């Protein structure tokens, strides 16, 4: 049981090579309205196993709405979302997470008052699902050596050794982003959704974060859906790119081709 080569990495590899056509995540024709304003109109999007996909668009384009639809805090009116070939549209958030969707937040959502290590331990406990109330009552739910080892491994991977036992409130923003990433990775996700991970970070921190992300992604053969404003970070990471504007996908495909698209330049990069 190691994070670097998780048990499911190989299986998902073989799975994806067996059926090239089935994407890991499939957003199928999703439409969502807010009080008459359509935030998303007939959006289609797919992420295959082991792929890094970018999602960009100006502010208010509907990126976060799409994110929330995938994650379950919003339900689309029309359309469906498939994960691993099955519809997840009616599942609550925590069940989607257990299927293998991990996420980070644009505005930090850490567990106030807990240390970095606590964050990882609680996530691992939730993933392996060994927590029981009766075990608590008999004082048998202290972290096992296996859980500790996994947690230490993640701390080492992200280089958080110095901060491991400090409460997260005392960490800087860049470190907090790493903790969020680590927490999402501790769920051993098949698909990782990153919501503007670089917002609030300086150039150096962003580069370091992108570096960590790339390493983790390659080793674990993760699929990643990245919402990001920082064009450099997007260019350095993703292969496929979707551009959202006014709730519709205006361009999709290989990154280079998309950046060359005239519509995209007009809507997003500001060229005329």
């Amino acid at each position, binding site marked *: 049981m190691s994070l670097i080569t998780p048990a499911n990495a190989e299986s998902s590899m073989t799975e994806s090579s067996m059926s090239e056509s089935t994407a890991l995540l499939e957003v199928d024709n999703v439409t969502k309205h807010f009080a008459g304003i359509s935030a998303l109109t007939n959006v289609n999007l797919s992420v295959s196993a082991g792929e890094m996909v970018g999602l960009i668009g100006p502010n208010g384009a509907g990126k976060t709405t799409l994110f929330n639809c995938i994650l379950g805090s919003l339900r689309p009116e029309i359309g469906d979302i498939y994960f691993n070939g099955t519809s997840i549209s009616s599942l609550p958030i925590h069940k989607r997470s257990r299927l293998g969707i991990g996420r980070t937040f644009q505005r930090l959502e850490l567990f*106030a008052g807990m240390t970095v290590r606590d964050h990882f331990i609680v996530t691992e406990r*939730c993933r392996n699902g060994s927590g029981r109330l009766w075990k608590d009552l008999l004082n048998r739910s202290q972290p096992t050596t296996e859980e500790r080892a996994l947690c230490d491994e993640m701390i080492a991977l992200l280089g958080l050794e110095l901060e491991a036992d400090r409460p997260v409130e005392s960490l800087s923003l860049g470190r907090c982003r790493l903790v969020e990433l680590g*927490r999402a990775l501790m769920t051993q996700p098949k698909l990782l959704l990153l919501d503007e991970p670089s917002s609030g970070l300086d150039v150096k921190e962003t580069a370091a974060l992108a570096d960590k992300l790339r390493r983790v992604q390659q080793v674990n053969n993760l699929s990643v859906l990245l919402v990001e404003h920082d064009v450099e970070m997007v260019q350095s990471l993703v292969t496929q790119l979707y551009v959202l504007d006014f709730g519709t996908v205006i361009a999709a495909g290989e990154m280079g081709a998309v950046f060359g698209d005239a519509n995209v330049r007009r809507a997003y990069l500001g060229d005329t």
Partner: protein
Amino acid sequence: MAQFIQWLIEGAPIGCVYALVAVGLVLTYKTSGVFNLAFSAQAFASGAVFYQTVINNKWPLWLGFVFSVLIFSPLLGLLLDRALFRYMRTASWQVKLITALGLLLALPELVRLFFGAQPGEAPPSIAPLIGIDQLKVFNLGGYFISADRMTAVIFTVIAVVLLGLMFRFTSVGLQMRAVVESPRMVELAGVDADRVSMTSWMLSSTLAGLAGVLLAPLYFVLDGNVYTLLIIAAIAAAAVGRFVSIPFTLLGGLFLGVGERALPDIVGTSSSFAQDIRPSFPFLVLFGLLVFWPKLREQRVVSDPLSGVDPPPPAMAHEYKDANMVRMTRIAFPVFMGGFVLLMMTVVSPLWVTRLTDAFALAVVFLSITIFTGLGGQISLAQAAFAAFGGFAMANVAEDGNVPALIALLIGALVAAIVGALFVLFIDGLPALIGRWRRRPVVRLAGLYLSLATLAFALMAEKVIFRREEISRGEYGIAVSRPEFAQGDREWFLLVFAIFAVVAFMVIFIRKGTVGRYLSALRGSESAAASIGINATSLRIILFSLSAGIAGLGGGLIGMAQGQVEPTATYPALFGVVWVVLVVTLGARTVDGAVNAAIGFVVIQWLFEALGLPTTIAIIGFGFGAITYARHPEGIVEFQTRRSILAAARGRMLKSRANELSNTGDLPSTYRPVWHVVLLVLAGPALYLFYILIRSAVQGHWVAVHSTTLLVFVVPSLIFALGWILVTERRLRKSGGLANGGFFLIGGAVVGALGGWLFYSQSWVPRGSISDCVLVGIPAGVAAVGFFLLPVHANRIALGRGWLASPISWLEGRTPFGFLLFGAFLFFRSSVTDASSATGSFIDHGFPPSGWPVFLITAILVVVWVQWVARVQGAVNELAIGGEGFEPPEEWATQPSEAIES
């Protein structure tokens, strides 16, 4: 239609009063973020002042009105804002809620203390003020309305129009809205948020005062209980306006008044259901709105967007312990507990055993608050109701005598747990089902709204469910007996203590275990918790049913202890509020906090009883004690524990440095080990206690305290302590303290001498001569000044040397000073109460049990006194051997200061 108009005319006046309080509620909630549940208490206070001035003091009607509504009420609001809520504007909702609840408890008792406990009969009407004859009955097209009711409507209309004009045409109205969003942001924009919130407090307090004066004549009586119900109706009215809209709040008030009037006509009065539902109409409306109106719960509880810049809360006290201390605790704790149980089983007087057993039964209920608030981060005001469910279920099962009492207790706990689970299903599950049908996820009821829902539930349970014959067997309830094997008081204690210990360990294990971690995550961020796969719904069910189950178990124990479970007396819903306030103030996160709260609740009330003081003072004390919660959200017990752990670590560090210095021969002569001083100060009282114990053991009964022997033992220690104060003061003054400290001491001596003379001349001291009194007064006055002066000196010296952390602050002197005043008060009290009471001149009475309150207070006084001496000597030592190169280590500063940017 005719029927409706009649309801409207008859219900509107009460509705107007509801609306006035509700508008005040919304106003302060919007401008200061405080959901002031104490407005009903303020209304009561104003009504009482009006009653007092007009009826008892025979003031003219208009003067009484002006004084109580236009002077007293705004001043009360001003006081509350300036002294209290101003400091809480950026505090969490829990802090604001607990403080308001504390006031809700304390204010009415304070009013009763001043104006007598009896409800005022025939309260004065203010109808003549606007030229209406009090006995006149108006005829509105065939519908009749009395003068008082007409007056209520007229005054409300005037108040609302004035309010509207103010909002429309003054800048304060605009500013009030801005302050709601973020006081700090508004201050950045140059608005004085302080002044805005002050204005709104005075304004809304005046509205509450007006409501108080209008309400009394409508019920023909001035009674605190009426006002408690008033607040629920006002909250329900404010909920109609979603706690933000003043016009809808007004409509809500009217709706409640009219609805209350109309309900009996609609459902009839014959069926028992109809009779039950009528008094609980406001609770039903509030509960229904909170549960079934998603918009209400979706709106964010007023909180400060900039609150993220506050430093994080300190870690739990036990995390500051070093390995040495942990080892010591591991040995000391079982020894202490074993010793305690052994003493309780043998020598402790039966009276104490009974009271402490009651305390531990209560502590079980309090542990349910530890679970709900300490782990869940939510505040439930329904724990008394859950305890009642457990108690009544236990009593019903055990009534026939077929079921063993212990099994009945467990069944009671189970029933309460099921009620708790059903409660969650009702407040979360039902809306979620509706939400699924409307394809819209529903926010869970949390925070302030959850607390309000529990309050409504608790009152509804008290007024409706527990009054039912099937549950409580009528007014006198059900008799219950303890288990066969625990009929004796000491056996009963053992049983209760064992149950408490099991539950306490359960709570500790849950906190450390998976559920505790999940709850901690959920408290930190609900969306993030969901994103890692934590099922919040099932966790909520666990939380509610665990907490309710433990409360039910405790309720069963309380019922067995009292031998009776009664529908209104055993578990009053308002006790649920007192309990939460008390536990949260002392510490909701630890078992220590719950135990301290329970012992405090039982013993302090008993103490006041024994001292011949009204026990309501205790409630007032608990209420105002909640104010400290704002400064120490972790709880007083937790705070004190952390402080003493840190002080111990600091002392040890100091000692090792002193050892280093003495090895090289550099130890300054001013350094004196703390224990030298403490030993000499403590020697007198300790030896005396020892002497009493030995003599009592020899004689076979408690011996009386004789003043001569007492003085022989204690006076040398006191003289030493006084000398120590004087010498230390002089030394500190010379080395850079407050230059004119000597004058303060002389002033203290003069005031002390005058005080002694006062005690003598008023003959408050039995059998004391003038020289006795003055001789005691002078050192007392000197000590009283010294309590503050010495820390101030030390503080000054440290600041003068440029130290970042001062070794001590003047606050250190508050506790011993307070005890000094309390001691003087006891002397005063002991002479004015008759000699036959437990307090009458304690020196002539025996030792415990008859003189136990004084003994208890003396014991605490000695501890406080020694602690102060130790702290000051520690600070003096630090000044002596500190200085260059002796910066306090990092962990002494309370917390790392780096904060999250959000």
